[in-house]
């Protein structure tokens, strides 16, 4: 029996159809503009697909959903109940429902020890859930929001169903997924910035290595990150004068762990000869460091679901900083499971000319195992 949490943000995505940048805090405006709920339809697609996959793959595991009363889960599960899926309401939201209800429901799920939380919503919902569950329980989203930059969504409701079915049958690994959302403070000042808030856990296809001719073995995400980190540390050993600028996220964080230095998960750090020389630096500090060091390498990892290497979550790496570093001095690293979900890389540096310089390259080298790389297309 798989015990899974299920929470629906009933208003998710409603702002998008009427041209708003989200539905958080602007529901009344969205309703006035004629927005209609889209979550129930997305959930319906998800549940129908999940049922058919479980049947066709012969997955015998039963799913018991723990959910919330009414439109936050119960009403969708009621109409889609079958023999292999049952549900129990463990939380009753207020009226109208709010983000606080999502957080409280997730608290209940944690108390009940669920193995996975499935949610329907966008970046805002993902963030609400992450604030409560952190990295304690993996989460996976049925995409239904206006913004979906976070790395915890299936590509579409059907893909989320595939992931949940594979998770239930024990085939998946748990890996990191970044939580990204609009930086509201900047937005109120009229700027559109997507910020990295932290990392959640999410089910991933494992990375396999061949053991024998007809057997393979899954390698854990952490082991892979360590391997990649070893490659970078060897590069550091090769050139003790080189300035290494380490970007945000836990993939790059593994390099700092390998070095045994303190690091900032959400920020940018600077290392020379395997020693931390500056932590969580801003743009001006970076420019200063670039004045002081002739040789430099920037190590970054794609952030979120859409393969952005620049322009999401790492604004310190401004166009000027990147130009000073030089595109050829950027080392991109990514565990293979994540790379499989982001077949294209993207940049959005805020500087058209610089973006164009990336696009001209067409392909960028990505290190995905120890000293092992492939060329990945960069999307215009």
């Amino acid at each position, binding site marked *: 029996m798989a015990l899974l949490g299920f929470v629906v943000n009933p208003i998710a995505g409603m702002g998008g159809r009427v041209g708003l940048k989200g539905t958080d805090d602007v529901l009344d405006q969205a309703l006035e503009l004629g927005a209609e709920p889209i979550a129930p339809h997305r959930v319906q697609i998800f549940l129908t697909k999940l049922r058919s996959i479980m049947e*066709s793959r012969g997955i015998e595991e039963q799913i018991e959903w723990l959910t919330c009363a009414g439109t936050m889960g119960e009403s969708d599960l009621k109409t889609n109940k079958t023999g292999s899926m049952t549900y129990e309401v463990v939380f009753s939201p207020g009226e109208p429902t709010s983000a606080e209800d999502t957080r409280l429901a997730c608290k209940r799920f944690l108390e009940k020890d669920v193995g996975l939380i499935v949610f329907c919503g966008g970046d805002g919902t993902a963030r609400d859930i992450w604030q409560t569950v952190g990295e304690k329980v993996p989460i996976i989203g049925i995409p239904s929001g206006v913004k979906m930059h976070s790395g915890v969504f299936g590509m579409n409701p059907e893909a989320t169903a595939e992931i949940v079915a594979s998770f239930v049958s024990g085939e998946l690994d748990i890996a990191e997924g970044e939580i990204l959302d609009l930086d509201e403070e900047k937005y109120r000042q009229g700027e559109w910035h997507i910020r990295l808030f932290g990392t959640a856990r999410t089910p991933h296809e494992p990375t396999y290595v061949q*053991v024998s001719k007809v057997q*393979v073995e*899954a390698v854990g995400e952490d082991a892979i990150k360590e391997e990649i980190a070893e490659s970078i540390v060897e590069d550091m050993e090769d050139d003790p004068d080189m300035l290494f600028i380490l970007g945000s996220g836990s993939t790059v964080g593994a390099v700092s762990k390998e070095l045994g230095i303190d690091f900032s998960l959400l920020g940018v750090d600077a290392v020379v000869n395997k020693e931390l020389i500056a932590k969580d630096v801003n743009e001006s500090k970076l420019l200063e460091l670039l004045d002081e060091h002739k040789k430099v390498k920037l190590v970054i990892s794609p952030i979120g679901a859409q393969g952005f290497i620049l322009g999401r979550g790492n604004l310190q790496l401004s166009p000027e900083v990147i130009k000073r570093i030089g595109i050829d001095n950027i080392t991109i690293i990514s565990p293979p499971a994540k790379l499989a979900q982001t077949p294209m890389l993207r940049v959005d540096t805020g500087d058209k000319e610089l973006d164009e310089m990336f696009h001209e390259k067409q392909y960028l080298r990505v290190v995905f195992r120890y*000293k092992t790389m492939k*060329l990945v297309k960069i999307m215009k």
Partner: protein
Amino acid sequence: MRDPSGFMRTEYEDLVEKGFDWKLRTLEGPSAPRCKVDGKDVIMLCSNNYLNLSNHPRLAAAAKKAIDTHGAGSGSVRPIAGNLDLHIEAEKAIARFKGTESALTYQTGFAANAGLIPQLAGKGDIIISDQLNHGSIIDGVRLTKADRGIFAHRDMGELERVLADADKKYEKILVVTDGVFSMDGDIQHMGEIQKLADEVGAMTFVDDAHGEGVIGPDGRGIGAHFGIAGKIDVEMGTFSKAYGVVGGLIAGSQDLVNYALNKSRTWLLSGSHPPAVAAAQLEAIKVLEEEPEHVKNLWDNTKYFKNELISMGYNCGDSETPITPVIVGESHKAKALSDRTFELGVFALPIVFPMVARDAARIRTMMNAGLTREDLDEALGAFEKAGKELEII
């Protein structure tokens, strides 16, 4: 107090629980087209004995005779005192057969890959691999300090881009690939690879384990198949498959052989093949040169078997070789089909996710030149019966 070896049992039990442990089946008697496995008479469709040479009377006689003339063992590693005239003769025969200047035998195919690849590239160099390369190549690559580049399976556009990228950055470039891929039975575009490699001055290394004795005129392997015999820097292979014996080999220039035997640690530090093995290797090559019917029979059987399976409604993928996958989709279906066909007297293994994609689970069949038309019809009958019972066809 620590338990010094407790991990062995724990990890083994974990494998058993997940169903990932090997359950060894026992072959009672020779590896033949029809043989006895765990007490059951079966048609063998999962050995690598493509040409049915493992039990060929000429090979068996040559092995017996070598025991009479040279004894049971070789006495040493080859660099010291275990280099027999039989080894040298077998190597001359390989070079002649494959159309290369020289050749060298290794203890196994794995020893060739794991021993030679690490000596071909190091720091400041790059090894470029097809993403589906065999585990022994991957292990060989792991032993080097070279960077590694990967290209999508048989994607020549991607290889060209990776080569162009590497050309600017690295000193030595080595492209390494399987010749015939053992899961799908498809053939690498070796002619194209050689051309692309020549353009940037890259070395080429092909593991032709499933191609030797199978593809190319009279089974001379992938170099001959693409008309580039002697041009590939390293044609690596094995005596354990179509040649019916055991042992690895490399074929190429005299420079390659001189370098390889002085540098490969697996070669330098393992005892050499016993006389019976070396003599059987030599005889296998002679049989291929003098009895072309085995390769012909292998292909006739392959074509008949594959066509019949397809006309029954089975999906046999893109195989171009005697490896014929019977693709049935979900893993549980492939396992059920394998169990049922075994009951019906056919021995072939299921290959399931994650070895292949979730929806491409299969039974992998490997043809044998010694199977008669009656044998094949019986095997096909089993596939038809089981496929209908399980509603696959």
